[in-house]
């Protein structure tokens, strides 16, 4: 990759004050840094301690610098097999994991399994048995059913990384969002973050809520009552149904994707009504802080949950930067889990 100035963000803007490039903290080749992550797998953000999240973010931060410097760490995962097992279509997450694995020198294999067959669960465990026989070291799983990675993790020897399961969790997305925030704002704790839109069906929202509340943020969820999960307030968030009050003085506005099938299930009447009340446009954004950042996990529905001009806002939209952080975060996760072999105790 092209060498870039590591003191600049992906968008070309300067790093936030307080963030200094720490080239000295690049993972040194051939030595093992102390491990602060105590799980064999990464199935969920829920249950991770602040120091485990902090460790992953710090390591990922160093990988951002490595990636920008154009160097690679191709010996780190040499001889290790990473399998991307995707039961649900995804281009960006799969590519991101693939790139992360390759930059660390792993043998990366992509498997896409159709879930259209009736016996999808049978396929899941049959596939697990096959992968086990292939001595896979790192297994990245995306599935349209909540809990499918947990089921797989009970059946395979590999370290399992959840790349999104149903409406449960998407832990690496939350980590990359946190890294984006931390690099731009210099901190995570103490910020006010509004997560807006279809929280009910969003695994991204769940993982982000767990991560951001664990790290001491004020988290708000904003959206129509039909797209709010039951008892979401018990997760330590505040619920708003109105964007203007929900966004007031927010540091971060995190938009969620609204899937078309939500309309067919009558949870919202139409795209234009949704955009009118919950789509992010300049008028609603004006209620957030002047320097509030705009985030979206992608892929975006322009004109449904977010106005195109806002999505492309040169200073405030960090949507492209999120993608860059995704690779670094996944490198950090692969690095950490590959060191553990389930014996990650401090």
């Amino acid at each position, binding site marked *: 990759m092209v060498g870039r100035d590591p003191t600049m963000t992906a968008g070309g803007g300067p790093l936030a004050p307080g963030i200094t490039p720490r080239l000295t903290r690049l993972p040194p080749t051939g030595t093992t840094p102390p491990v602060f992550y105590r799980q064999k797998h990464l199935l969920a953000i829920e249950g991770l301690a602040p120091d485990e999240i902090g460790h992953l973010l710090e390591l990922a931060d160093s990988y951002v610098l490595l990636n920008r410097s154009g160097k690679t760490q191709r010996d780190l995962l040499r001889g290790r097999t990473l399998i991307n097992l995707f039961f649900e279509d995804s281009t960006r997450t799969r590519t991101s994991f693939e790139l992360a694995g390759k930059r660390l020198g792993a043998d990366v294999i992509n498997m896409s399994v159709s879930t259209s067959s009736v016996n999808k*669960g*049978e396929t899941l465990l049959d596939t697990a048995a096959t992968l086990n026989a292939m001595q896979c070291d790192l297994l990245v799983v995306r599935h349209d059913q909540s809990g499918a990675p947990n*089921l797989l993790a009970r059946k395979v020897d590999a370290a399992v990384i959840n790349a999104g399961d149903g409406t449960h969790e998407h832990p690496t997305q939350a980590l990359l969002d946190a890294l984006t925030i931390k690099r731009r704002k210099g901190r995570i704790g103490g910020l006010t973050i509004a997560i807006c839109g279809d929280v009910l069906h969003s695994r991204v929202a*769940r993982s982000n809520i767990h991560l951001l509340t664990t790290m001491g943020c004020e988290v708000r969820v904003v959206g129509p009552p039909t797209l709010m999960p*039951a008892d*979401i307030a*018990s997760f330590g968030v505040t619920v708003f149904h109105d964007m203007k009050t929900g966004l007031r003085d927010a540091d971060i506005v995190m938009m969620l994707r609204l899937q078309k099938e939500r309309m067919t299930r009558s949870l919202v009447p139409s795209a234009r009504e949704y955009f009118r009340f919950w789509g992010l446009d300049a008028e609603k954004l004006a209620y957030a802080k002047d320097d509030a950042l705009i985030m979206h996990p992608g892929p975006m529905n322009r004109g449904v949950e977010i106005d195109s001009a806002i999505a492309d806002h040169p200073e405030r939209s960090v949507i492209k930067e999120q993608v860059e952080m995704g690779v670094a975060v996944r490198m950090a996760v692969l690095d950490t889990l590959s060191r553990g072999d389930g014996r990650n105790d401090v």
Partner: protein
Amino acid sequence: MSDVLIHNVRLLSEGLDRPGDLLIRDGLIADFGPSLGCPDGAEQINGDGAILCPGLVDMRASLGEPGFEYRETIASAAQAAAAGGITTLACLPDTMPALDDPALIHMMRTKGEETGSLTILPYGAVTRGCRGEEMAELGLLTEAGAVAFTDGAKAIASARLMRVALSYARGFGARIVQHPEDPSLAGSGCATEGAQATRLGLPGIPAAAEAIMVARDIRLARLTGGAVHFAHVSTGEALDLIRQAKDAGLNVTCDTAPPYFDLNETAIGEFYTYQKLSPPLRQDADRRAVIAALADGTIDAIASDHQPRDTDDTRLPYAVAPPGGAGLATLLGVTLGQVHNGNLSMAQAIDLLTARPARLLGAEGGRIAKDAPADLCLFHPDRVWRVEAGKLPGKAQNTPFDGRPMEGKVIGTWKAGRRVFG
């Protein structure tokens, strides 16, 4: 068959609770009471002070036959039932084919007799194929020996159809057994709506889905004068409605199953499909309301709600795994938990498992009386054991109580005077 004298036991049956002996002759209870003499040639069994009660009457269980023999056969279910002290069992009709034809009702009764250890009382289907469309031949099915009517795990969704069924069944003195859950509200839900389901990212079923169906059917029972029975009731709200309907003199009854007074939604843990039940495990306030309704008599019976599943069913992502737990071997032990912790008296617990369901089903068993069939269960109320999936009697191992310590163990089961367990 020679006479059998079971002595030194606590005799426990509706209206009976005293130490004594019991004599079995020709498959019947010939006599019982304090210090019976031992007739010449009688086999003697010393009960060591254990409790001798009627064989349990389980008013709701699914059998794998016909159609799902890979999950469980009748022979294997009978083995599990005997180990659980159950001698009479009412089976659900949502099999393949469904029990919607008199010949199938005959077949199930005969298959029960063939086990030699278990009386099978089949429910008839309310609708053909349990599809919820056209009414089955309730009259002919009654004549063939169907004890009541239900579409099994499926609710009778249409109010019009429920009205017709209640009204028509009334003419034959038959009860309609409802799975109380509004299907349009429950949708594809698989866990109780609330923080737990939200956390796991599972589609929720609001507790109101049960109360709405119960409220509707109570109203229809009043409209028709028919008899409705609500199966595996799991929420306090529904139990309040049933309590009021009973007070108003309507012909409304209900049962619950051990998971609903022993477990709550947190048992799902990390997507454990053995705990995926229908209705779903509820919040703890509902569990406590079920216990209160057992104690005050609102609930008429405790049924196993046995649903055999094999590993192809349970090793699936949570939302797509079929719901249901094995329950025959654990019915008594889990119920005794409520006696040990003081919520129910021993007599109340045994009545809920014997006399009261027997009356609802019009079954012969369920009581200790002279010349009644010698269907008996001898159990030690304090003996401990641990439930272990994989080591339960019978084929179905999908117990929601895996790992649970139990206090109370069946040590002998008799069917028509013949010892079938222990």
